[in-house]
Structures are given as C-alpha cells and as structure tokens.
C-alpha cells in the first residue's frame, strides 16, 4: 500500500532516494550496501551504473570504520560479553547476598587481580553498552541524527564510558 501510494503521489520518496544516490556516486563517495531499487535504473544516457556490493571479508582490513560505526559494533560486542558472563555475574550476586560469610568470600575473591581485571572488563562492557544504548535511544527519537552531531555523540560515548572505567580501575587497584 505505501509503495503504491508513493509511486502515484507527486512527491516520491523512492525517486528522492535515487537522486541522492546519484549525487553521492558522482562525488566519488561510495556507500556500502546496495539499494535493490537501483539495479535496473541505469541513467538515460546509456552509461552503465557501477554495481555496489557489500564488502568482502578480506576488504575489512582496508575499510576505515567511522567512529559511530565503532560505537555500534562495540555495542554489539559488549552486549554479547554481558550475555556470556551473565552466569558469573549471577554467581557473584549470589555470593554477595546469601550470607555474611559468602559476602566475605566475595571480598576475598576480589583481592585476586584476575577477578579484578575480569570485573573491570565487564564494567567497561556495561558502561559502553549503557552509554551507546542511550545514544541509540536518542537517535531513535531523531535527536542528533545529522552527521556532525552523530560523530560528536559517539565521541561522548567513548569519553564517558572510558573515563568512568578508568576511574573504576584506579579505585579497584587502590590508587584512589
């Protein structure tokens, strides 16, 4: 229904999209990921439009992921880490709540530097996931969705999550 409406109305989002894509490919900037509507839309002058495909795995090394992209993939990585370490967190939570003696055992465990490093890593994952998640929620509300603002907010995500992790690290290793 919506596509039919768009095609018959005087202002068509699809044609708008094509014009934008044409403009970007003329300026030499190439987007990865293809729009299926572009396949048969060669320009009227007969020159074939270059095919745009997803990047292959061996092209990853040379592809410079922009900062918002790094925030995004790390959101995924940190989410997976939190999922995988959920049993460890629940076990520690259990130790902290069951009894006075298990609480003391947890306090003893946290003297071990391996435990400290693991917990710091999980703290980073939680902080990054939280900060990046708030940013995505704001983007969903169309707040800061333009390129400059999105770059700025991704810098802010790293600034907040990494500095809070650093503060935690200094606290855990007794420098604070």
């Amino acid at each position, binding site marked *: 229904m919506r596509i039919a409406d768009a095609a018959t109305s005087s202002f068509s989002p699809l044609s708008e999209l094509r014009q934008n894509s044409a403009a970007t490919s003329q300026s030499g900037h190439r987007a990865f990921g293809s729009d299926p509507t572009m396949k048969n839309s060669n320009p009227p002058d007969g020159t074939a439009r270059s095919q745009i495909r997803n990047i292959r795995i061996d092209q990853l090394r040379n592809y410079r992921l922009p900062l918002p992209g790094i925030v995004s993939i790390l959101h995924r990585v940190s*989410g997976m880490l939190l*999922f995988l370490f959920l*049993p460890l967190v*629940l076990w520690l939570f259990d130790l902290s*709540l069951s009894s006075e003696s298990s*609480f003391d055992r947890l306090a003893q465990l946290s003297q071990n530097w391996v435990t400290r490093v693991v917990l710091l890593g999980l703290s980073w994952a939680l902080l990054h996931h939280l900060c990046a*998640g*708030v940013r995505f*929620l704001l983007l969903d509300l169309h707040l800061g969705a333009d390129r400059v603002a999105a770059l700025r907010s991704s810098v802010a995500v790293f600034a907040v999550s990494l500095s809070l992790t650093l503060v935690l690290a200094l606290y855990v290793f007794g420098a604070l």
Partner: protein
Amino acid sequence: MAFGSRRVLVGAHYGLRDWLIQRVTALVLIAFVFLVLCGVALSGHLDYGAWAGIFAPVPMKLVSVLAVLALCYHAWIGVRDIWMDYVKPAGWRLALHVGTILWLLYCLVWSIEILWSV
C-alpha cells in the same frame, strides 16, 4: 493478531514489536541501575547488612524480578539478532536460538531464587 478472513497475509510483523520491546526493556534496565546506585549511595559504608538491606524489602524484590525479566527479554532479542546476522545454517541457528532461550530462562529462575534467599 487477526485470523480467518481478516488475517494479514504479508509479513510476521514481529520485527517492530521486538524493536520496541528492546527499547522499553532498555529504559527499565537504566532505571533499575540508577535505583541500585541510589541505594548504594544512600547506604553509606557498604557492608553485608547494608547491601542485603537494599534487596530485602519485598517491593525491591518485585522490582528486581521485573528488571531481570526485562534483562532476559532484552538479551534474547539482542543475541537472537546476532545469531541471525552471522549464523546462516538453519540447524546451527535453531540450536543456538533454543540454547539461548533455555539459558536465559535458567538465569531468570536462578536470579529469582537468589533474590528470595535474602
């Protein structure tokens, strides 16, 4: 969901619902994190009594169970999306989906047990 002659024939339409649920559960989790942080900040010196005291009142237990439910649903949607993006063989994907659901349900029941042991 409409069946019979009113049934919508195109698309399962669970995409938007899951997208929305993931965001709603995210807000619940943010609120819960700040609730616990407030509890820690108000309790002063954090010994066992103070820490257990945060989770001891029944309303806090119920809120905690709500947060764990939100966490499990949130994690399910996120992890399922990761499997769907990277694991293409149907058998592997089904096994990972089932494993994820069982594991999250296990963690859910476990955390309810932990919360009610206080």
